[in-house]
C-alpha cells in the first residue's frame, strides 16, 4: 500500500531559470494592502 500521496510534484526549481519576466501582478495591488501575500498570485508569463 502507498504511504505517501503526492498532491503536487513541485516544480519551483524549474521556474527559477526562466523566471522574473515581471508580467505578473504586484501582490499589494490585489486585496491585501497590509500584508505580503505572494503565493496566490498567478503566473502570467504565457499570456
Amino acid at each position, binding site marked *: 500500500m502507498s504511504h505517501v500521496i*503526492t498532491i503536487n510534484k*513541485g516544480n519551483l526549481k524549474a521556474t527559477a531559470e526562466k523566471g522574473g519576466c515581471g508580467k505578473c501582478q504586484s501582490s499589494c495591488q*490585489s486585496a491585501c494592502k497590509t500584508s505580503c501575500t505572494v503565493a496566490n498570485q498567478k503566473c502570467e508569463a504565457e499570456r
Partner: protein
Amino acid sequence: MIHKFRQLGYNIVLDTESNAVHVVDDCAYEMLDLISAPMNENMPEVFIMMLNDFSEEQVRETYSELYELWQKGALFCSDDYRRFSDTMVKSPVKSMCLNVAHDCNLRCGYCFAQTGDFGGERCVMSPETGKAAIDFLIKSSENRENLELDFFGGEPLMAWDTVVETVKYARSVEKQHGKHFRFTITTNGILLDDEKIKFINSEMSNCVLSLDGRREVNDKMRPTVNGGSSYDVIVPKFQKVVEERRRANKDYYVRATFTKNNLDFADDIIHLRSLGFTQLSAEPVVADEKEPYALTMDDLPKIFSEYDRLCEYMADENNPRFNFFHFMVDIDQGPCAIKRLRGCGCGNDYVAVEPHGDIYPCHQFVGIENWKMGNVADGTLNEDIRNYFAKTHIYSKNGCSGCWAKFYCSGGCNANAFIYEGDCRTPHIISCEMQKKRLECALALVVNKSMKEYE
C-alpha cells in the same frame, strides 16, 4: 527543508524548496522526524525499533517511498536559490498606488493613514498630477507591458474627477506606448452612486470594497465622521457593485480588517457571505501594540483557532461557497521562484504616489520623510532606495532563509517590518506567525480538494 503539520485530518508535508506537497500516513509522518538529506538507499535498521507502532513491512515500505521522493527532488530538496538572489537588481517600475485623496469620509479607528491625511494636511490630487503619474509610470516601466495602478487614499472617491481624468488619459496614451493599464480601486463605498459604479465596473479590473463584517463590528471601528453607522450606507451599494461585476465576470474583494475587538472574525467572514459576497478577505489590523484594538502575541492562539474554524467551515461542502483571499494558493501554477524571492516589489517595481506627486516605496511609507523617493513631476527616483529594496529579499532578511514559508510570503511586508521592527529586513514576528497559520490552512484546503477527487 520540509514542514509537516496536521490540518483537516490530514498529515501534510510541504517540501519548501521544490514546493512539493504530500499527504502521508502516520508511519511516514513520524519517520520524517528521523530522516534528513542526504538519504541512504538502505534504511537504518534502528527505525524498526523506533517506529514500533508500525509493522516492519510498513516501515520498510514507507522508507522506500520517501527515498524515492528524495531522489526525485520532491523531499528535502536542496536550496539553490541564493545564487539568484545574489544577482538581484532593480526592476522597471510597473505598479503604482495612487493616493488621490489624503482625506476620508469615515473615521476608522485603526486607519494607518491617520483618518486619511497620513499625518499631513487634508488634500486631493489634481488631475494634472494624476496624468503626470501616468507619464512617469509609462516612462519608468521600460519594457514592461502590463502596468497596474490602484486608486487609493484616504478615500479615492473624494477625488473622483482625478480618478476619471487619470483613467481617460491613460487609456488615450497606452496603445501608442505599447502598454496595457490595469486599474483597481480601494474604496469605503460611502460616495458610490450609479455613475461611479458604472465607471468602476467598466474600467477597473478589480475593486476592493472595505467592510469589516457584522454591523456592530464594522460600525465600532468604521464610523462616519459624525459617529454614525457606515454599514447601513455601504452594504446596499456594495451589493449593487458586486451584482454587476459578477454579471461581467470581473474581480472584486470585500475586504475586512480584524482587530482585538473581533477575534471571532470567522463570523464576520460568514456574515459577509450571507450578504451575497463571495470574494472575501480579512486582514489583521496594522497598529501599534499600545492601541487597545491592536493584535498581540497573546492573541495568537485565538486567531489560530479562528483560522482553523474558517478552514473547517470552507472544507464542509454543505456550507455556502466563497473564496477567502488568504486561503487561496495555487501550488502548481503560482508565481516563479524569482518573483517569490522578494514579494511585493515595494520601492522597486511598485511605488506609491501621494497627492502632491511625491513618491514613496509603498502606501504604508507615505508621509515618512526619510523614505521619500522623488516626485512624478520631475521624474526623479532615489536610486539608493531602489537598490536597497532590490536587495531586500528572503536571503537578506533576518530569519527568512531558514523558514519553511519563505516562498509563500516572500519575506513578508517591508512596511510592517519597518514600522514595528525599525528595519525592513527584520520581519514582524506576529505577522509571520499569522501568515504561517494561514498557509497551513490554505494548503490543507488544496489537499482536501485533491483528496476528495482522489477518492
